[in-house]
């Protein structure tokens, strides 16, 4: 199985079941270097799970996940660690370490992976916090931060080692319009200024259309549409249109599969 040489991540025919429930039934996608690529789809289709495959945290039932030309499932624990140092992942809730201050959270990777002197760590951390607009909050504890601030601190931490690949897991969920705007700006600016490749997992159509260069839409365990946002949003595929327009019923049914309602009531 070959991989796309322009792509930093290539996924081929990925199959995965969680218990009896199939999550992926043959996903194919490529993430091109330097682009902001969004992965969208209804809740529960496995968008975040896909990021865990790219990070080597899960093993597939079939298919391959290539990162920088290497099948990630074949890497030893040591090589996987080296690969992960080149990735950054912003978790859905930030996943900040609650027993550390903002400064220590952002300094965490430098302390773990480098032998830099304390004054240099101090300067680097403040630079990253300045980039996300939170230099003044470096002394706060995590429980003193708002949801939006926590996500920005987590972003500063994730880009601390200047990764090649930055992944965002539902960054806009639960954010007010101002924070959404801030995050869109940061995602775009970090991608362009640091020459990153960005994977953005989200189901927020409006925000994704403002920031993404390329789009994949997943439903029923497969990719149902891909392309530039304006192309995908106008594609006639019914499942895709239901998702884009936010229709409550359609190919994705409102009702969870159940027995006949009348029979159940008269039982």
């Amino acid at each position, binding site marked *: 199985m070959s991989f796309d040489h322009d792509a930093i991540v290539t996924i081929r025919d990925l199959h995965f079941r969680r218990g009896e429930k199939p999550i992926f039934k043959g996903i194919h996608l490529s993430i091109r270097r330097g682009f902001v690529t969004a992965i969208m789809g209804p809740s529960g289709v496995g968008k975040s799970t896909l990021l*865990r495959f790219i*990070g080597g*945290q899960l093993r597939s039932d079939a298919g391959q996940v290539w990162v920088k030309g290497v099948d990630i499932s074949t890497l030893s624990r040591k090589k*996987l*660690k*080296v690969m*992960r*140092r080149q*990735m950054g*992942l912003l*978790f*859905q*809730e930030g*996943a*900040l*370490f*609650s027993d550390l201050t903002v400064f220590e959270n952002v300094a*965490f*990777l430098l*302390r*773990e*992976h480098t032998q830099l002197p304390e004054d240099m760590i101090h300067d680097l951390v403040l630079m990253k916090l300045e980039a996300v607009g939170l230099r003044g909050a470096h002394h706060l504890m995590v429980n003193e931060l708002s949801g939006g601030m926590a996500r920005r601190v987590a972003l500063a931490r994730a880009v601390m080692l200047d990764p090649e690949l930055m992944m965002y897991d539902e960054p806009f969920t639960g954010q007010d319009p101002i924070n959404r705007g801030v995050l869109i700006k940061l995602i775009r600016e970090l991608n362009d200024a640091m020459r990153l490749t960005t994977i953005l997992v989200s189901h927020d159509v409006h925000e994704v259309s403002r920031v993404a260069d390329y789009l994949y839409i997943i439903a029923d365990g497969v990719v149902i549409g891909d392309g530039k946002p304006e192309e995908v949003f106008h594609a006639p595929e019914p499942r895709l249109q239901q998702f884009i327009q936010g229709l409550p019923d359609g190919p994705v049914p409102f009702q969870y599969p159940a027995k006949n309602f009348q029979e159940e009531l008269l039982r």
Partner: protein
Amino acid sequence: MEFVFKIGRFGVTSCIRIGQSGFFLFRVIGQKPRWGQLLFLWIEQIYRVGVLSLIIILLSALFIGMVVALQGYHILEKFGATEELGQMLALTVLRELGPVITALLFVGRACSSLTAEIGLMRATQQLDCMEMMAVDPLWRVISPRFWAGIISLPLLTILFNVTAIYGGVLVGVDWLGVDSGTFWSNMQSAVNFRSDVFNGVIKSLVFAVVVTWIAVYQGFYAAPNSLGISRATTKTVVYSSLMILALDFALTALMMGGW
């Protein structure tokens, strides 16, 4: 037939869990030490696990020592042997009450909080986040807590023993009027350092390994939701308490030459 399937499934699941927990312990112990960072993490965890447990352990020890002396005095009085109070108190505390009660209190105070803390770190994706940052959570989170438990419990047991004996002195000597010289000299002549004091500390060391192992394992593999964390914490307390009592019997039999 369904019953047979259930038993089979339970057996297989139990074997998997035992294997998994053994492998987990092996990975925690086998971590390559990085002393510079490790020392700081150990000190922090010894403070949380050990120092913060001090008050409950010492207060309990004081009251247990007092009640043992009071009960012992009235029993010994029937046989006209109240001068043996010191001996009875010391042997009861050093051999049994010290290691067992300290371990049980430690489970309730420290191990349950270890499980809940680690489980919550799992639920809030902090452990996944560490993995993605190429930092092994077994090294950064589990190992310092595990070793802190092993170091703290024997020390807490020694402090429990001292405080319980002091509580016994308060009641036996200062309140009930047992002669101080007789109290201490009988204790000194009856207590053997190796078979009583040292064996008690060995017991507490074994309890420390087992209960801390159970606590960190249950937290690490807790289901990442509120029910999962609550179940894991309950399992920690129940399994650890039962293991303490079962191991206490086995170790006592072994140390007394019963086996």
